[in-house]
């Protein structure tokens, strides 16, 4: 019974926090650039303003064009609700599997790319093809990371992995640190952050995600933007849940739940600040160097698996 309640709370929490996290990253970046920057609450106002605007769309748009943002949003919301944030006592705990998570992310990406292609403009097509190129490289890398984690924890289920990490059965391991670096690189690429894509620009030559969703407006754009914000929150929660699971409550005591919630918020704040700092410190790559960046992530994940296997055979 409590599992259902916590699951609902968690879905509400992820949807409510996602714009705040994006706003926080923007705020940190603006401060580091020496500007004051908008309030971290600005994304909420942006979404609200877009919601009231009349949507305009191309004449060539088919129903697919209008359906794809909704599909992407629902898939990402479901995925972000699966990851345990403050407690492991969730109604959907048995479905919280890393491979299911990757499948949901792939579904969202597929839907968004179809929406980009649907209208038949050049920008939508090039954005979709670039996004697919990045995805084709990121997906094997994230699967290698999952293999490493499952070799260590003995399961691809998130609850099992978190339980294993919290149980103290694992110390500082090479393969874990390599997997962490690989996962961070994948998260940066998948969220379209610098150095792969710049979320703050509309420069024709370099944009990836923005090009793909250029045709959307009004309430459709709200779904697209909210899905993107949820994706950022999802990756932050995932890294937090696997590599810094401290505080996630395994029993239903009010104190434990409260501590889990506060620690979760702190983890998100630290993650957002770290991302902002990283983005300010680094320059954007050419689109075609993204293959090298993600190839590096894939090889690091491969190394993590190799080292895990040696540690087991020796």
């Amino acid at each position, binding site marked *: 019974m409590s599992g259902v309640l916590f699951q609902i709370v968690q879905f509400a929490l992820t949807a409510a926090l996602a714009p705040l996290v994006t706003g926080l990253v923007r705020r940190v970046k603006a401060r580091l650039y020496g500007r004051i920057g908008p309030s971290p609450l600005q994304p909420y106002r942006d979404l609200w303003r877009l919601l009231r605007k009349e949507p305009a769309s191309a004449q060539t748009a088919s129903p697919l064009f209008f359906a794809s943002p909704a599909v992407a949003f629902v898939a990402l919301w479901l995925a972000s609700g699966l990851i345990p944030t403050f407690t492991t006592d969730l109604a959907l705990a048995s479905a919280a599997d890393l491979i299911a998570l990757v499948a949901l992310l792939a579904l969202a990406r597929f839907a968004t790319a179809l929406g980009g292609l649907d209208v038949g403009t050049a920008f939508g097509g090039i954005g979709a093809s670039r996004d697919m190129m990045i995805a084709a490289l990121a997906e094997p890398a994230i699967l290698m990371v999952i293999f490493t984690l499952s070799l260590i924890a003995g399961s691809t289920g998130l609850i099992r992995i978190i339980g294993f990490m919290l149980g103290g059965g694992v*110390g*500082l391991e090479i393969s874990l640190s390599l997997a962490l670096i690989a996962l961070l690189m994948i998260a940066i690429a998948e969220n379209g952050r610098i150095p792969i894509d710049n979320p703050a620009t509309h420069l024709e030559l370099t944009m990836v995600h923005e090009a793909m969703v250029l045709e959307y407006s009004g309430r459709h754009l709200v779904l697209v933007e909210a899905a993107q914000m949820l994706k950022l929150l999802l990756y932050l929660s995932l890294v937090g849940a696997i590599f810094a699971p401290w505080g996630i409550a395994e029993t239903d005591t009010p104190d434990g739940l409260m501590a889990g919630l506060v620690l979760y918020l702190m983890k998100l704040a630290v993650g957002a600040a770290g991302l902002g700092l990283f983005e300010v410190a680094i320059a954007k790559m050419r689109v075609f160097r993204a293959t*090298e960046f993600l190839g590096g992530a894939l*090889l690091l994940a491969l190394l993590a698996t*190799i080292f895990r296997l040696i540690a087991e*055979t*020796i």
Partner: protein
Amino acid sequence: MDQLSLAAFDYDVAHLASALVLLAAFGLLYQRRLPGMINLFALQSAALGTAAAWQAWMQDATQLYATAAIVWTLKAGAVPVGLHWLIRRLHSTRTVETVLGIGPTMLAGVGLIALAVLMVTPIGATRSALTREELALALSVILLGLLIMITRRHAVSQVIGFMCIENGVTLAVVGVKGMPLVVEMSVAFSVMVACILFGIFFFHIRERFDTLDLHFLESFRGEDR
């Protein structure tokens, strides 16, 4: 139980420092710019120094503290500063390497690491696990250093590859119990001498060929191109 977890922690930290050395070697394969390569080399040496100091504390071996001090001051400090000075003098700070292609090079790197692991695995169960994994990591660093030397054209980056090999050797020495200090001292000293000689060579090569791209030396040797 406490004793056991403490030992496991010692083991993990030693491991992590060695892994950082390997990761930096991997980064050297990926990096295209000379200043970036030099900074990565400094990071690698700093990690190596940390590994040496940690091993000294674990094994209660005083001479390893000397090794750590040498690595920190010379290889993490003096050599990178000297190389930065050198490339400024040679006006190649902005040099971007034309490498064989980052992807294939890194794939070859992973292959070499797998090879190192396969070579070390049959050493036998008599040695402790730490020594063996340490040896696998050190061998990987040495092989990656060789790969850097093969795939790079610029003379300075080849020297960095050479120093990377030397770091791998030191890592192996540090991981093995009871290696006398004299060996390490002589290795470190010979590398310093080599570095000075390289510096002199660079100026001579550039004076004669107007470049540090060793590609141009091939035609000079009379090889068919």
